[in-house]
């Protein structure tokens, strides 16, 4: 295996907008809000940026195709700029592009920016773009929404591990209660209210067995990172955050077409995380990872990720959840910023929003949510549906 890019790239500045129903803000205004915070944080000027990656998933309801909207909005004249899209891993892909370019020696300072303006769709949930799976598969896919595709993982997980719907839903409820607790402490979060197990259990069903509080919000937002060569990083700030691993894994069809996969875990997360741990030199994730921001589009997604990331034993995430292992004061706090659950999921921005929290935590700037002496922070995105998806795993540290 290639040696990877561990400790060759550093993040020296980050910005993140408040997420939410930003009815008064255009996607361009969100980009400017995240960008100005990032360059001020890095202590650089606009002209110092050599190249940029922008991430937007649903360009139809947002800024449009290509990197032109980024360059025009931020007035980045004639630099190399690229738009990336890889479903929910879009923001992490923008970061990966920027980091790989720096690691390759192609540029010294790069910008990664993700933005999504979902609240211009005109109805609840993600856009119903029936051709997003292609012009042929649109006929072959059921009339689905993301909650339903992930709900089926709940159905299957409960069946496989012998949980009654009530037992299963109660374990899932702990996950949402924990995230709302953290989100309530975060001024940038969309949803800032503590919730109770009973509220989660009794909420209206969105897609059986998932209820309203098992689903993340839908919101507008943008986030940005400035990355540079590790050997230059301390010129900008005393506490740069170093990239330890950036990995992507993509389904190639076996989960969807062969009958082996159990629909109770996400195989791509297993592959991406194992590669990331190797790249970062992590031997025992449960002992070495200090904190995580995982892709909690739905509570069941987060539950299975605990197992797929190698933190909880297979089929036993429920025990860790109920023991408070992932709470803010637990062994590995998960979603310390409130997660997708409280931030909502403006697709292109989410990966960078997660990284923003890890970055601030490592620098000791997370305020009331501060985790004590974190060493390694992990971010994880999973885009698509459980049988067919893209997963990113990033690990950063001091």
């Amino acid at each position, binding site marked *: 295996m290639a040696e990877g890019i561990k400790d060759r790239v550093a993040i020296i500045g980050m910005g993140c907008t408040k997420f939410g129903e930003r009815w008064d803000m255009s996607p361009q205004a969100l980009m400017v809000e995240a960008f100005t915070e990032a360059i001020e944080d890095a202590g650089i000027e606009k002209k110092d940026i050599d190249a940029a990656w922008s991430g937007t998933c649903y360009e139809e309801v947002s800024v449009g195709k290509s990197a032109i909207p980024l360059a025009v909005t931020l007035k980045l004249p004639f630099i190399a700029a690229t738009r990336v899209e890889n479903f929910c891993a879009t923001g992490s892909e923008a970061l990966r592009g920027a980091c790989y370019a720096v690691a390759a020696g192609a540029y010294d300072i790069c910008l990664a920016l993700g933005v999504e303006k979902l609240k211009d769709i005109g*109805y609840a949930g993600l856009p119903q773009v029936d051709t997003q799976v292609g012009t042929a598969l649109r006929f072959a896919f059921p*009339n*689905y929404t993301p909650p339903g595709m992930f709900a*089926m*993982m709940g159905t299957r997980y409960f*069946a496989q591990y012998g949980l009654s719907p009530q037992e299963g839903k109660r374990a899932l409820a702990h996950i949402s209660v924990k995230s709302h607790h953290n989100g309530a402490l975060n001024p940038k979060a969309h949803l800032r209210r503590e919730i109770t197990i009973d509220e989660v259990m009794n909420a209206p069903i969105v897609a059986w067995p998932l209820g309203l509080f098992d689903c993340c919000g839908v919101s507008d937002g943008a986030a940005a990172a400035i990355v540079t060569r590790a050997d230059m990083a301390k010129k900008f700030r005393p506490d740069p955050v170093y990239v330890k691993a950036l990995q992507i894994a993509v389904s190639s069809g076996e989960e969807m077409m*062969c009958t082996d996969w159990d629909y109770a875990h996400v195989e791509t997360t297993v592959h991406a995380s194992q590669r990331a741990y190797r790249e970062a030199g992590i031997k025992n994730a449960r002992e070495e990872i200090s904190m995580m921001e995982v892709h909690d589009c739905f509570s069941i997604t987060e539950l299975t990720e605990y197992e797929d990331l190698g933190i909880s034993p297979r089929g036993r995430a429920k025990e860790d959840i109920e023991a408070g292992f992932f709470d803010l004061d637990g062994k590995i706090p998960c979603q310390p910023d409130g997660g997708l659950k409280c931030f909502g999921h403006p697709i292109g921005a989410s990966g960078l929003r997660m990284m923003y929290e890890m970055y601030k935590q490592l620098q000791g700037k997370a305020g009331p949510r501060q985790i004590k002496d974190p060493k390694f922070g992990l971010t994880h995105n999973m885009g698509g549906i459980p049988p067919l998806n893209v997963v990113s795993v990033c690990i950063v540290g001091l």
Partner: protein
Amino acid sequence: MAGITSYGAYVPIYRINRMTIYSALGWLNPASLLPGEKAVANYDEDSLTMAVASAMDCLRGVEREKIDGLFFAATTTPYKERQNAGIIATALDLRPDLRTSDFTTSIKAGTGALISAYDAVTSGSAKNVMVCASDCRLGKPGGFQEEIYGDGAAAFLLGDSGVIASVEGTYSVSYDFVDTWRAAEDRYNRASEDRWIRDEGYSKFISEAISGLLHKYNLTPQDFAKVVYPCLYVRAHADIGKKLGFEPGQIQDHMFTAIGNTGTAYTLMILVAALEDAKPGDKILVASYGNGSDALFLQVTDEIEKARDRRGIKGHLASKKDLGSYEKYTTFREILDIDTGGRGEEIAATQQTTLWRERKMILGLCGSKCKRCGMPQYPPQQICANPKCGAINEMEDYRFSDKKGRLFTYTGDVLAFSPSPPAIYGMVDFEGGGRWLFDLNDCDLDSLEVGMPVEMSFRRKYHDVSRGIHAYYWKATLVRA
């Protein structure tokens, strides 16, 4: 000897009690109440999908490769230009060197198609011709026709070997008798006065065709085990047989109070019910109705015993669900213009180029099977999806539509728009290998369990009214008893 070599039928799972209709709109037309219930197509069913369902029933144990003709009879064809029989043939994965025709504009088109198929076989121009008759007619809300019409389909295969009921003779009468009609611009049927239809049309034409056939072949009513003809009016139905000299026990039950008058399919569905109980040697007399009448004289053979595994009429009548409300009925039939919300309005343009190129995959539910490792896979792949194999371009076609499966996981989705929420879908593992995600229909979320057996059902995927598109695909349903 030529005749029927296989039969099948389809009755949608939903029924609406005629009292439910009357409770909603009886105030408008207090005399409109009729007895019993009628079969109602689900929101994703139409005459074409029901025809495919009846054909699937008819094709049990039949080699599809030998079929060289397909005739579709319906007055409610989804397309007025674009051959509906061609869509059915593609759905059934029939061979392309096939003669197809639509028989339409009269509810006697079903027997018309049957006689034409028989003629094709006896002339030698075709060997095995399938006939599907189906209808899903609309009467105006609050009128008699709305209570009369039911939805359903029947299918027959005609050939000259393995004949289960030979066609021994036919006799037809044709009149431009305008009892019910629907002009090109009409959505609902119109009807003339009932008494005139009953006395001058319905009672006379069926009697004339049956008498003509008896005379032509020098037969008497006593020669027949069963006589089959449709019902428009329950009492008049009994009177026709009685006046012709048939005993009540010879008259095949009309199912008017269980299914309703299914138009083009009706006479043939009653014939399927007659064949289900027929014994070798039985003679069956069939007469349709609609702008005249076609009569046929059938002779049941010993081969009938080999065709007992059809779901047919009996099997379909054994499983049913009460639709419950008139509003749901009018929603399913797109009579009520419901609020679908923004999500329900989003239908992207339909790429006919894609549908043509991928017709076997989409309409035919064909995937591929790896010749090296043997794994069936859907949709069709060029490079084997089995990670232990990976063979390149070593695939053969593999049809999933006739395979049973098991429900691997499922959900009921309230966010997705459905005219019958929640939208239920799940992952199906097929017997013999292969899996895919499918919409599930005709079931309740509460009745589902992981591992339940399912089968495939051809349904309308979407109806894009603004572009004139009825798009079709396959869904999963629980196996009907």
